[in-house]
């Protein structure tokens, strides 16, 4: 069985390390991006199954990156599952992203031992069209 390709977008290396620990290499093919701009480039070149996107990042925010991804999908192609992860500076951040189309959200900080189950749940729901 092919591994699920997950692109993790977060500017905090300590948070990246938690994702790396929680998402086992045997099960997931992972790549990391430090900001929205790098995420867009990896989305174009690598075509991940799922993107976990922080919202507040330098260079380009997760909201801007999500908007660019969804705008691109309007021209055709499959919808990539996107889960936003945020330390909740403002609840409207999640609502704004939800309006663009997201498959779920995660509030940081999170426990590394719970992250795989949360993402699988959102991804399976996406596959089933929910």
């Amino acid at each position, binding site marked *: 069985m092919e591994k699920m390709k997950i692109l993790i977008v977060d*500017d*905090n*290396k*300590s*948070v990246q*390390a*938690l994702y790396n*620990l929680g998402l086992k290499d045997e099960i997931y093919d992972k790549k990391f991006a430090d900001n929205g701009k790098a995420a867009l480039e990896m989305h174009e070149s690598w075509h991940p199954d799922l993107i976990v996107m*922080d919202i*507040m990042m*330098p260079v380009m925010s997760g909201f801007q990156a999500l908007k660019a991804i969804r705008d691109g999908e309007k021209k055709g192609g499959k919808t990539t599952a996107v889960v936003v*992860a*945020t*330390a909740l*500076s403002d609840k409207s951040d999640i609502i704004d992203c939800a309006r663009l189309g997201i498959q779920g959200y995660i509030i*940081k*900080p*999170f*426990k*590394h*031992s719970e992250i795989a189950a949360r993402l699988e749940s959102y991804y399976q729901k996406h596959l089933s069209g929910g």
Partner: protein
Amino acid sequence: MAEGKGGKLVVKVDPDLAELIPGFIQNRHDDIRQLKIAVEKGDMATARLIGHSMKGSGGGYGFYGITDIGGAMEIAAKNGKKDEVERLIGELSDYLDNVEIVY
């Protein structure tokens, strides 16, 4: 979190995270250096981003005190309260100096 011998703050951390803890602590010391530079420049946008980032990471390692300091720093920087940001940098520094990690 509990207070241990000599006023140390005892934090119990998941043993699975043991290898990551030195890197996590080093990153927070790097945050302090960057925050001091940001305050010197009056760059509250950077201070807000670093505070927000600490808020989102601390608790994931068991350091909920860092999440609390980060959240307070994010709000202070957003409101342009430079003195409060400086006070919180000192609080973070004290926290790192006094934390005792147990697995």
